[in-house]
């Protein structure tokens, strides 16, 4: 089994096409939102349209989608029923993300309903394994208890091999809480480098006087290259945390009063700069292969169709299929390298000795460092 690539998928279409059409930037510094081209404004309930979408994703080497489980009207819904019917074991499957960040009044009584909603999609699980990502572990209150409860409910529902991922940058705490792995949070949740807009006092006065765009004060703007560089440097020290790769991110449409996170990648007059994005995908796949055990090698692509935060890779009016093709090429390249280079044929040193070598090297480095 090779590294699995899972893309976040928004099932709220056609409703979100309307939201996309109506979104208006409040600042000239916001990159434009894009509009679908070849796949059109599809309806996630229509099988023939979803077959095209899933087919295009599979053709790029994407192994499946991650869909949200959201509590609405007394139950958890995914909106992925049509998509689930198109999944094929071992070829294309689904994972789920529990949007607990949207659920202010969660109580343990809902655990059964949450697991039931997950279990309803059993035939569509990627490789037959139920995987649930918890969007905001910090909001769980007593995370350890909640995780134990979810595992108990999963066992009761007959979900073998239940795999629980925390959306957080470092795992050591998460492991204690019972999570199997972590996942880099989305760019709004984790600014991995400092923003490059740092308004001065004068800026603030000018904004208050109505002489300057207020987003300088309210929003965070990040340079893409440094942002993704910061996410990948020394990653081994963060534990078993799966990489989240994205071509760009700007959530201004959901922050009409300010507070947006804007990770700019290109976007002046030439659209998304795909060069660094392609390398991000390639290197993330190499990292997952090298650092995670067989069966737990995942890279998460943010996103397939989150048009409202500008991270979509679907073919678009402004970028054509450049971003999609970049992902496809990057996956092809990375998988070719994994296939052709093979795995290390040398038995690894035991953990204790490796840790000791690390310690001695750090001590030696401290002794010689200028």
């Amino acid at each position: 089994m090779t590294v699995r690539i899972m893309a976040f998928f928004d099932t709220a279409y056609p409703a979100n096409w309307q939201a996309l059409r109506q979104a208006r930037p409040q600042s000239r510094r916001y990159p434009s939102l894009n509009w679908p081209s070849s796949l059109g404004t599809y309806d996630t309930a229509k099988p023939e349209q979803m077959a095209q979408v899933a087919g295009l994703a599979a053709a790029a080497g994407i192994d499946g989608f991650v869909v949200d489980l959201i509590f609405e009207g007394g139950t958890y819904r995914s909106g992925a029923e049509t998509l689930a019917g198109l999944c094929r074991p071992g070829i294309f499957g689904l994972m789920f993300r529990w949007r607990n960040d949207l659920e202010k009044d969660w109580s343990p009584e809902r655990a059964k309903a949450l697991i039931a909603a997950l279990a309803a999609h059993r035939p569509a699980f990627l490789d037959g394994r139920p995987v649930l990502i918890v969007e905001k572990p910090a909001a769980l209150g007593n995370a350890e208890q909640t995780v134990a409860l979810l595992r108990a409910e999963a066992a009761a529902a007959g979900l073998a091999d239940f795999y629980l991922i925390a959306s957080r940058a470092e795992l050591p705490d998460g492991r204690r809480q019972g999570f199997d792995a972590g996942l880099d949070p989305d760019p709004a949740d984790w600014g991995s480098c400092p923003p490059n807009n740092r308004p001065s006092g004068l800026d603030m006065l000018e904004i208050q006087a109505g002489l300057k765009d207020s987003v300088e004060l309210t929003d965070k703007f990040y340079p893409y290259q440094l942002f993704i560089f910061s996410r990948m440097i020394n990653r081994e020290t963060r534990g078993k945390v799966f990489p989240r790769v994205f071509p760009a991110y700007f959530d201004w449409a959901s922050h009409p009063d300010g507070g947006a996170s804007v990770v700019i990648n290109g976007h002046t007059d030439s659209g998304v700069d795909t060069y660094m994005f392609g390398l991000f995908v390639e290197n993330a796949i190499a990292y997952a292969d090298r650092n995670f055990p067989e069966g737990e090698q995942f890279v998460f692509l943010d996103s397939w169709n989150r048009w409202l935060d500008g991270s979509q890779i679907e073919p678009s009016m402004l970028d054509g299929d450049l971003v999609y093709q970049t992902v496809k090429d990057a996956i092809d390249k990375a998988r070719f390298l994994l296939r052709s280079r093979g795995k290390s044929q040398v038995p690894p040193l035991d953990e204790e000795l490796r840790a000791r070598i690390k310690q001695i090297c750090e001590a030696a480095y401290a002794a010689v460092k200028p």
Partner: protein
Amino acid sequence: MLAGLALAANGKQHRLTLKFNTGAFRSDEVFDSANCPPARYLIEMGRRLLEIAPDAKRLIIGNPLLPLSPDQVAGWIPPALAAPVVIVDSKQFPLAYCLPRWLVEEEERFLLLLSTCDAGLDVRLLGLIAGCEAGALAVPKLDIGEFPISTTTGWFMGRGRQEMLRQCSSAAIKTIQRNKAWRSLPFAAYLPYHAGSLLMLNLAARQVPDGFFAKEIICASYRDIVDSCPSPLEMVPLRLPWLPRDGSVGELEYLTHALERLGPEVRDQHFFGFLRYSRLYNQTPFHLIDQMKFALGHSMRQETDTVHGGQPFASARADLPAKPLKLLFHLAGGWKLKSYRADRAAAMFMVLRGMGCEISVIDRPDLVPYGARLVVSDDTALLTAEVRAHHIFIGVDSFPHHFVRHALGWPTVALFANTKPCNSDAAERSDYRAVVGVLPCNPCGAEKECPMLGGEDCGNFAPPDQVVTAILEMARAVYGFTEGA
């Protein structure tokens, strides 16, 4: 993407689009090699068209430098003539080539000499090869304009590069005009001044016995590389120093001097194939040996054709007792960013010596104070002797690493940083390990300063503990070494 069209006698058309292969080896893809002239792709398109249309009488092949579709090419079909035609834009930039079937089938290697950037030269050349008047057909409303240094489809083809292709085409025209027996003259690969490239070329040539080339133009001072890593290509020594790394002599200027220096007896008796970069070599996942194989004429259609699809070129071990473990380091790449930091190397040496290892280091006197023996390796014989006196070679992405691994087959730990391992590594085995970080800026292509953080060091080198771990794992597996307490 490449476009082509096959025309049968009954007027039937077969259209073909080829995309650059990024590792999937799909049937509608063409291998991506930086080390060949654009015309090499024209030949490949010709081969593919003849496969899908064995009854074709004429082939119309889009200029590989241009992102064309077969539909566009179909709009430029010249009137039915047996003679070749170059379809050109309003300023004589070649858009496509209309070629009689026999020219592609029987004389394909001569198509390698097409400039693909100068229609005047290409019309003359095609006329001479075909033995009849070749024509030019203008598409008046299209002006390609100045071809950029690099393109979205991966071409690396500024004015200087185009001029080099023109010079090779011009030289070919003169050679044909001066020799009645020109059809039997050999092709020589022009790749004179980069030791690593020469090594890759020689290794590749062993696997392409029926390629376009019979000879190679090489700086005479690289004769030791040819002796240590021989090739079926006969060496034509070029008595010029290497191209200086400081940029004081451009590649175009060097080619002009080289053709001059080779003299009329060599110039008039050979055709020169330009094998320096025409594309961005580090954008593809393919090894430089594989890129060379394609340049030499192999179609590279399957994964098993690649260097990692087969056995290593060589495999050898030190005939030494397991202790003390003798390690030979080469930590100075040709660029600052390819060199391993002195303080990190020093820490590594201290730890390894503490475990009873003996350290030698090539060309880094600054590391001698940390217990390393300094080694000079001016030529491959000296390098070979030193390698054989050590258990494991540990080297950055530079000639010694490629030579030690691919020519000698010695146990090697490779240290990559701002270049991609896949372009010059070897398959993972008990005696080969490539160690590198996963920063998304790799490969940055920078030489002197990190474009992300500034400074002369690359943050993508593995830290000392990872290198030490890799060395010990290999020493245990290959030599049965056990480290001291």
